[in-house]
Structures are given as structure tokens and as C-alpha cells.
């Protein structure tokens, strides 16, 4: 897919909690086609300490309105600067980057998002929905305030919630959710995005039941186009760039992700 560098205008900036914002951005030109799971590299203009672009999952795409949404978690100066951007300002974005999630057809699928890991799952759920899949969405977080956009996701299927403090949905981590208690899970694929520990634990569950598990990784990167080789992940085929050969991987490709390795699982860590 051809990559573009485009200017977008901020249409709205909605705070979701104390460190997450949802940006709606209108493209100055016709927006190119994008796949669910692909990402964008955003130039940060307002932060003197930020030199490199910042990668964000493409959250939603509306071709009719020529807009897209990005879900921003404030982590450092760069993301904070973007989260504080005002309506009407211009943002320079390189997209669409990386591969996408494989979209199954006419089957039952589970989407698991931890914290801001729900970011790529909105567009994914929409695409899966269009391809006649029965979508179940499991969202986890530490506390009720960390569960982002759960109501929005209900339009695509059943939404399940797990919080570590029990303030919303089931108490505990997503991996301990009752949906996984079945001896034979009904899903033909599991899609997952969140902290590495969570994704590893979900991939073990999937592996045990022989269900393909697609995970979206988030390594620190510079170029986003496979030139610098900074964002590599260790796979059974050697180092692979998360930016061009990911960010979506079948968990079986990743070294150290098989069920034998010990894993912890905590949201946002």
C-alpha cells in the first residue's frame, strides 16, 4: 500500500480520562485506504523535547467524512503535547504504515484490549462486523476509569469488562475472565492489543485451544518505514521490524511467546 505524508486538521479533542484523549482529524486531501491494525506516524510540532514522530494505531476511519480518529495516551512530552492540541490546528501524519489484522469471514471472533490497547480494535471490530463475524469484545483495565469507549464498542457485538479492582465488570485481569473458562472456546480467531504480559497470557490461552491469536505490538521506533531497524522484535525467523513486518503478528511467530515461558499479566505495565 502506498504510504503518504498528509496534513490533517483537528476537528475535536475529547478527553476520555486523566491521560487519554480521542482526536478526530480531517484530512486536507482525500484520505487513502487503510487497513484495520495499520498505524500512523504523527509529527509532534509543539514539544521542543520531542524529535521523532510518534506511532499511533488507526482507531477509526470515516471515508465519507474524510476523517480518522486517533486514541492518544499521554506517556511523555510528545504524547502530552499531542493530547493538548487545540481544535483547528494542523497535524502532519505519515500513513498508512505496517500490515493489518487478517479479517476472518462469517465466524465467531474475540477481541481483547487492555488499557489504550483498545485503540486498533474499533476499526477492526467494524471490519469484522462487515464481514459477517460474530464479535465479542473483552476490555480490561485497572479500574472503571481505565475502561475506554466500552459503550462505543457495543454496536459491534457483546462487550465484556474486567477490572483489577472490580469497579466495572468482573474482578481480576482479562485473562481470568469467565469467557475463558470454557473447555472449548467458540472463537475461530482471537485479536489482541495491550501490554506485552497481557498479550502473552492471551496467546497462551489461544495456543492451548489451537485458536490463531493475532497481536499488535508497540515497540519504540524511529522511522516507521523499515529504514532504521530500531523497532525489531525477536521472531522464529530472526529480528523483524514491527513497523513494516508488523505491528500485527501471529503470536506463534514470536520468540519467547510460547506457553512454556513464564508470564505475568498486568494492565498498563
Amino acid at each position, binding site marked *: 500500500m502506498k*504510504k503518504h505524508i498528509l496534513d490533517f486538521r483537528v476537528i475535536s479533542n475529547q478527553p476520555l480520562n486523566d491521560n487519554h484523549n480521542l482526536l478526530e482529524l480531517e484530512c486536507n486531501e482525500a484520505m487513502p485506504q487503510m487497513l484495520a491494525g495499520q498505524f500512523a506516524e504523527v509529527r509532534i510540532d509543539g514539544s521542543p523535547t520531542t*524529535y521523532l*514522530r510518534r506511532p499511533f494505531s488507526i482507531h477509526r476511519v470515516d471515508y465519507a467524512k474524510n476523517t480518522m480518529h486517533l486514541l492518544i495516551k499521554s506517556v511523555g512530552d510528545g504524547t502530552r503535547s499531542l493530547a493538548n492540541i487545540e481544535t483547528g490546528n494542523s497535524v502532519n501524519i505519515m500513513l498508512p504504515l505496517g500490515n493489518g489484522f487478517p479479517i476472518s469471514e462469517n465466524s465467531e471472533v474475540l477481541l481483547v484490549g487492555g488499557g489504550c490497547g483498545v485503540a486498533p480494535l474499533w476499526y477492526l471490530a467494524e471490519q469484522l462486523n462487515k464481514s459477517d463475524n460474530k464479535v465479542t469484545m473483552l476490555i480490561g483495565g485497572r479500574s472503571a476509569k481505565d475502561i475506554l469507549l466500552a459503550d462505543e464498542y457495543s454496536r459491534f457485538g457483546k462487550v465484556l469488562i474486567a477490572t483489577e479492582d472490580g469497579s466495572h465488570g468482573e474482578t481480576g485481569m482479562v485473562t481470568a475472565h469467565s469467557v475463558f473458562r470454557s473447555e472449548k472456546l467458540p472463537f475461530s480467531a482471537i485479536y489482541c492489543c495491550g501490554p506485552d504480559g497481557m498479550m502473552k497470557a492471551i496467546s497462551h490461552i489461544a495456543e492451548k485451544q489451537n485458536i490463531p491469536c493475532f497481536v499488535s505490538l508497540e515497540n*519504540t521506533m524511529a522511522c516507521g518505514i523499515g529504514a532504521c531497524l530500531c523497532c525489531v522484535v525477536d521472531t522464529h525467523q530472526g529480528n523483524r521490524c514491527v513497523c513494516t513486518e508488523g505491528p500485527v503478528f501471529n503470536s506463534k511467530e514470536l520468540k519467547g511467546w510460547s506457553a512454556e515461558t513464564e508470564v505475568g499479566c498486568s494492565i498498563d505495565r
Partner: protein
Amino acid sequence: MANLSVNIHKLNLKNPVLTASGTFGYGEEFDDFIDVNALGGILVKATTSKHREGNPYPRMAETPMGMLNAVGLQNKGVDYFVESIYPKLLKYSNCIIANVSDSTVEGYVEVAAKMNKLEHISAIELNISCPNVKEGGMAFGTSCPSATAVTRAVREVYDKTLIVKLSPNVTSIVEIAQAVEAAGADAVSLINTLLGMAIDAEKRKPVLSTITGGLSGPAIKPVALRMVWQVARAVKIPVIGIGGITTATDAIEFLLAGASAIQVGTANFIDPQATTKIIKGIEDYLERHQISDVNQLIGGLIS
């Protein structure tokens, strides 16, 4: 329109703007953004005698006005380059320069000899300055005897333009430049990255898996400019300036300091169109100053 073409030994470049090795992949990564043929030339990612997996993640840390990297020369080796990468480079009609590195003199010689047979590779840049490998790399470029030895050995098997890329992590870069000139280098390029370090204070751990890494970006530009100026006055062979070049003004500063051409590196990561914007900016500068030939800028500081 002003003349933009410059010569580096036998190379005639249509303009002085090249890409720095390791920041431009094999060119094709940038095809969506620019006409790669519009550049003076491209320096492709470093090639070693054997496949190298590179260093473990994390390999990168952002720093004020720059970044540290510790990629560690990840590449599939010279035989893979000859079989699978070289044919893809043939679509480019401009100057293609291979960056050659290794951990032994024999390894450098093997890669150089194989590159010598590739018609469309018009020069090699000998990387004796990579700070991110345990053996070789920078170790060759930080003492005059070892820099001389590897340059001389490669010179014996390489007939075309031989550029040697110098490390700034030395007491006197001028002495190293003069040593490789005497050993048969046709040009020098400088600077490679400066050895640096980043620490995560919250975790009380180094950020990079290798602890130290190579600093690049605008942060190093004044150091690079000083070194280019010093070396250009001390050698007779052409100098290629590298270090934090982001804009046409940066590029012109390096030409004025004595560089005959420049390489754009880290700027490619933030703006994949940086190189073509710099070419346009140099044209605009020449027009604005009514200079008919870019060569008039080389070493053109007014005293």
C-alpha cells in the same frame, strides 16, 4: 539554473545530496515519498561478510534534538546482497554507494572484493566507525595503524572510488583522515555517530540493550561541522560532510566548511522527503545569492 553537480574522485554526482548509510534502507523504503533518482546518490545499509542479526531490542533512545541507536549492523551478508538486493538497486540510475563493514580485515576485504565486481555500485564507503559492534567497526577507526591497515588492504582489491567513513570518537580526527588518505582512500566521509548513553531514571537502567549507542541528529551538527572544517583543511582528497543535516542551510554550512558533498541521515526518519527538500533549498540559495555553480560554495567561507 545553477550547476549543482559535484565530483568525488571519479564519481560525478548530479547534486551534492546523498543519504547516510543505515538511515535510508536500500532506497525502496522511500519510493513512496520521493523520486530517489533525484538525489546525488544513495548510500545503502551496511553490508558485512556474514549475516548479522544485530543487537537485541531496545535499540533506540530519543534524546534532545536527536537519537541514540544501537542497531549493530543488522544485515544478511554480502552474498545475499549480491544475489537479492543488488538486482533491486538496478532500477536507480543515480550513484549507488555500498557501505562496507566487518569485524576483521579479511572480512572487509571479502566484501570490498565482491562489491568491486558489481558494475552499478560506483563506490564503497568503508565503515571503520560503527560504535555498536563488539568487534571491528569503530575499533578500526580509532587508531591510525588499524585505520591504515584496513584501508590499505581494501585498496588492494577495490579499483573504484574508495570512501572511508571516520569516527568522531577519537582524539584527533585529522590524524586518522591523513592516515587513510596516505593508505589510498579517495575520499573521507565524516562523522559517524558519537558514542553516547541514555538512562531511564525511573527504572534505574540503561535504555539501550547495549548500554551505549551512537548519537545522531541535529544535536551533533556543531561537532560534525567543526570536524569537517578541520579535516578539509588537512587533506587533499574530497570530504563528505555528515552529522545532523536537516535543512538546506545545514547542508550549505557543511559545503562552506569544506565538504564537497553531504549525507542526510536521521532527518530521513522524521521527514522522508528531507533530501529532496534540501536539494530544492540549495537551488534557491544559489539563485538568491546569484551563484552559478555549487562548487563555488565548497570551502567558501569568507575570511
